[in-house]
């Protein structure tokens, strides 16, 4: 199974999609134009600090609120490798899978996490942090199919005989 390490940014509970990307920027033409405004209502400087391969660890109900798919796309465009949270809002979870943004539900990591530290992740198994192993639940089969196809678009292209 894939393993990687990454520097962690910590966000709290109920991070809604208006915080991830405010409505007024949704009309911008491309995700690249929008990503600089990521998290701006809560931490305006954050989008500029996130580097390729960083990881977000958050509390419960991450991604609640609007069904805007720009939310997971922006997190991915900022270079975030994966988001580990106590729990995810339904639509955000589904949109992330459709866009190939890796999400993991883990109830305890958030409580022990300090922003700036580095963690080691083994997909579908566990996260290693300060010598402790935090178990990760594996995804349902239909979601694994979409992810292994590289997201819903690629899955549909394959269905339509394009790839």
């Amino acid at each position, binding site marked *: 199974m894939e393993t990687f390490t990454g520097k962690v940014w910590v966000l709290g509970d*109920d991070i*809604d999609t*208006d*915080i991830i990307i*405010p*409505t*007024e920027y*949704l*009309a*911008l*033409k491309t995700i690249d134009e929008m990503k600089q405004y990521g998290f*701006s*209502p*809560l931490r305006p400087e954050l989008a500029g600090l996130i580097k390729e391969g960083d990881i977000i660890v958050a509390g*419960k*109900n991450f991604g*609640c*609120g*609007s*069904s*805007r*798919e*720009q939310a997971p796309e922006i997190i991915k465009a900022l270079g975030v490798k994966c988001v580990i949270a106590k*729990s995810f*809002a*339904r*639509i955000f979870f*589904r*949109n992330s899978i*459709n*866009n190939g943004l890796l999400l993991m539900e883990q109830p305890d990591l958030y409580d022990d996490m300090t922003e700036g530290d580095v963690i080691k992740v083994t997909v579908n198994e566990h996260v290693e942090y300060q010598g402790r192993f935090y178990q990760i639940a594996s995804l*349902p089969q*239909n979601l694994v199919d979409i992810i292994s196809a590289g*997201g*819903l*678009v690629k899955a*549909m*292209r394959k*269905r*339509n*005989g*394009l790839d």
Partner: protein
Amino acid sequence: MGYTIIEKIIRNNTGAQTVKPGDIVTVKADRVMIHDIFIPFVADKFEEMGFKKLWDPDKAVLIYDHLVPASQLDDTRHFRIGDAFAAKYGMKHVHRSDGICHQLMTEAGYVKPGDVVFGTDSHTTTYGCVGAFSSGIGYTEMASILGTGTMWIKVPETIKVVIEGKLPDDVMSKDIILRLIGDLGADGATYLALEFTGSTVEEMSVSSRMTIANMAVEAGAKCALFTPDEKTAEYCEIQLSEFQKSLTGDEDGVYKKVIRYRAEDFVPVMACPSQVDKIKPVSELEGIAIDQVFIGSCTNGRLEDLAAAAGVLKDKKVADYVKLIVTPASRKIYQEAMEQGIMEILSEAGAIITHPGCGLCCGRTGGILSDGERVVATNNRNFLGRMGTSKVEIYLASPKTAAACALAGRIVSAE
């Protein structure tokens, strides 16, 4: 073995013999809705996926409501892309300035009891008010439905909410759903369906049920459901079929939890800045000075909401230096409100009445505020930065409470 309403709808839709929570099934879409902000993204993904035609052009509805009238230079690009997409793929149901998507989908007859409907907006749960399974999805998901006509879902467990008795005069259905969200918490119904029943619910108009269904998503719910009855039939202008009549929770249906409320216990409440589940009785917030009141949105912009506000505002004036912005939910409601003299009362009181659409609720225009300002609003979200900067305080309330606050210039209870 008995079924919940959502299980019955899914059985009917898939033809499966048995259906239980946790099953992964593929449902056929009876109708889908796309609005103006996301049509460019839906169109891109649809063509990127290699689809050549819509599975059924008659089943797709395109509605411009977030960007009407346009307030930023780039807004009209969304209209041009939407018009081109509709023309290219033979879509006939396009509404360009008729009101909010979630108001039109039932008002214009696109959604019937028992239908399975998806929309590119989290408040698509609204159509549960007529007993439809309707839920919000992302634009990539919508693109795949437009091509295939189907979508996989996990059958949700259901929480049954039973409300019995008669509501106090100053309480509206908005106070009920706010109280429920406060009790459940913003993620209390994640992955779950909410079924509403009880004498209070049976007494409610479809419009009042819409307010409740609309905000179910604010507790994380996948959908909300009301049993179709005579009021539903009259609203949808149909005769209920046997299947539609059967859409009630069986006595021996399996529910994750049952929550009971006595109607008499409800009081006017508000969601305080900046979470929808931060609920307090209005009585505990009396006296807080406000700068603006917004009455509108797909949550509370209907005729009965405008009438409730007019009842409070009649022959009175909005407080000095306070703006009251009224945005009716649809063109049809605007006209009915004119016929009933409601618009005259509201304009006499000094209301700023804008064209039907999402308006301030979607945070792009329609009354944006700046640091240190406070607004009492009848929409469904008060997140950080939702109506201006992150230093704007948004209190969610019912139209009756909101109108009373507009008169006083501060938070007060409606008499």
